[in-house]
């Protein structure tokens, strides 16, 4: 196991390094100089040069790359060009919205998908199975931001059960904050729940056909006992992998949903920075999101190897 962790950590570091290089390179070749963008067309050359020095734009690119990466490793994400505040401070507030939203959506997705997949698998080929599968086809096809608009229309405007947008902040109480995140979380969860239901169903069907299930039945367990004692545990392996992958999808998906609900999360920060051409913020936030995704995949792989020793020899 230790060898596997070491090997997998090596590829983790490599992925992060390459990802940071790509992000840095892409933002470097961006047309336009942030300093001249900030000062406008009539800027004096001396002022421009002074600002470029202040922003650290006058040092060689390689040095800038290393100071950017080195800064991030110590929690310094640079200074926003437009707000002149630390990017890390701006990010900290926003993460307190985006991560809880993704976790909330993932929880909903799991709560819906596990029973639905179980139900469909237990009625394989029947009306219940067909109904669930048809619903998942539809769920996968619905764009989450459109579904979000429909949820607002029905549950916020027609019935006023939930706020239509905005976020009061966690200091206004856990319940109030959670209420503001409920519709966004439902919108995010729907397509993921549809996918997870299909995975749960097919994983269960695969397991039900295994020899050890027949053995379990032969030694006298009822179908239900065999399923609970031997089936579910084995079916959960692929399901757990997909849950891990979904978290990174949901994390990235919050970027769009935040736009619909005017939530002050990482997504809105990215869009605000794009329109202000505040590329240092875009660069650092994108790197942060990619870091999150790579880390989650890494942890999923480790968890997977811990559950199933056969996987340690591969990779």
């Amino acid at each position, binding site marked *: 196991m230790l060898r596997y962790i070491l090997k997998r950590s090596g*590829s983790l570091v*490599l*992925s992060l390094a*390459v*990802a940071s290089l*790509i*992000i840095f390179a*892409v*933002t470097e*070749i*961006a*047309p336009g100089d942030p300093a001249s963008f900030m000062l406008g067309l009539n800027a004096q050359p001396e002022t421009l040069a002074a600002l470029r020095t202040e922003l650290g734009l006058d040092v060689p690119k390689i040095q800038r790359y290393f100071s950017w990466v080195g800064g991030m490793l110590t929690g310094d994400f640079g200074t926003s060009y437009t707000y002149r505040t630390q990017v890390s401070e701006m990010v900290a507030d926003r993460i307190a919205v985006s991560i809880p939203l993704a976790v909330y959506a993932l929880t909903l997705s799991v709560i819906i998908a596990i029973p639905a997949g179980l139900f469909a698998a237990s009625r394989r080929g029947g009306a219940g199975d067909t109904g669930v599968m048809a619903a998942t*086809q*539809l769920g*996968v*096809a*619905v*764009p989450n*931001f*459109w579904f979000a*608009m*429909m949820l*607002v*229309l029905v549950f916020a*405007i027609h019935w006023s059960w939930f706020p239509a947008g905005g976020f009061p902040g966690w200091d206004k109480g856990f319940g109030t904050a959670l209420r503001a995140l409920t519709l966004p979380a439902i919108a995010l969860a729907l397509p993921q729940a549809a996918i997870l239901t299909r995975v749960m169903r097919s994983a269960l069907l695969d397991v039900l056909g295994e020899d050890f299930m027949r053995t379990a039945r032969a030694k006298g367990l009822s179908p239900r006992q065999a399923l609970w004692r031997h089936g579910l545990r084995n079916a959960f392996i692929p399901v757990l992998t997909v849950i891990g992958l979904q978290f*990174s*999808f949901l*994390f*990235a*998906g919050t*970027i*769009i949903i935040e*736009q*619909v609900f005017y939530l002050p999360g990482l997504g809105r920060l*990215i*869009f605000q*920075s*794009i329109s202000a051409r505040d*590329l240092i913020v*875009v660069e650092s936030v*994108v790197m942060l*999101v*990619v870091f999150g*995704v*790579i880390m989650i*995949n890494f942890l999923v792989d480790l968890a997977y190897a811990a559950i199933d020793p056969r996987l340690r020899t591969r990779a």
Partner: protein
Amino acid sequence: MNRQLAIGLGLSGFFILLALVSLVWTPFDHTSLDIPGKLQLPGSAHLLGTDHLGRDILSMVMVGARTSVAVALVALVIGLSFGVPLGLAAAARRGSWLDQTIMRGNDIVFAFPLLVMAILITAVFGPSAVNAIIAFGIFNIPVFARVTRGAALPLWEREFIMAARVAGKGPARISLEHILPNVTNMLIVQGTIQFALGIQVEAALSFVGLGVQPPTPSLGRMLADAQTLVTLAPHLAIVPGLAIILIVLGLNLAGDGLRDQLDPRLRRHRV
């Protein structure tokens, strides 16, 4: 043809046909404004109603579907034309540094969530349909490389490939003449799935203003316009949304149906 495939082809075919018809005819000019006749509900004059500027929604959906289909299709072609050769090469030289490099490169592209990559590209190069296509095209490359490699690897162990090698054919020629025809089924199935995903990605990017720019209509842009008016005129959001759902549903059903149809093992299994 199985039922899924028939329904899927019917649905997606209908919208692709609508998109093609819009090249020569739409009920109204999709750019002509008619402010007094704005926000009409679906009726006899305008089958699907009018938007906040009095434009005919049916005409806009037709042209919008054309834009969305074009974006998804070009991204698909990018993915296929780079991904398939990479996958074939990786499989032909299994375990070599070439294979390793291609697969590790794929892992890294996969680590970038599609949306984040699209945002990065459009943030730097400016929002446009072309940049949205490039972003999704890049995302498609590792998808097809992986599918091609995965399908090609077991083929290299088969007797008919051995026979081709004995006959003196090189890896490139074997890949082209024997491997490629045998992985085409998989590529078609994956292609319909990526096509559907492309429609959704275009919609999402245009919705947040990073994709197709005005005045070109696209289904995502129509939803973006509808966002502020949804309480006043819900049909502005419902119509393009349903169009997206039906196209994607059709393509996904067609993909699932095709997989069952093309894989003889599954066919026997079902009967």
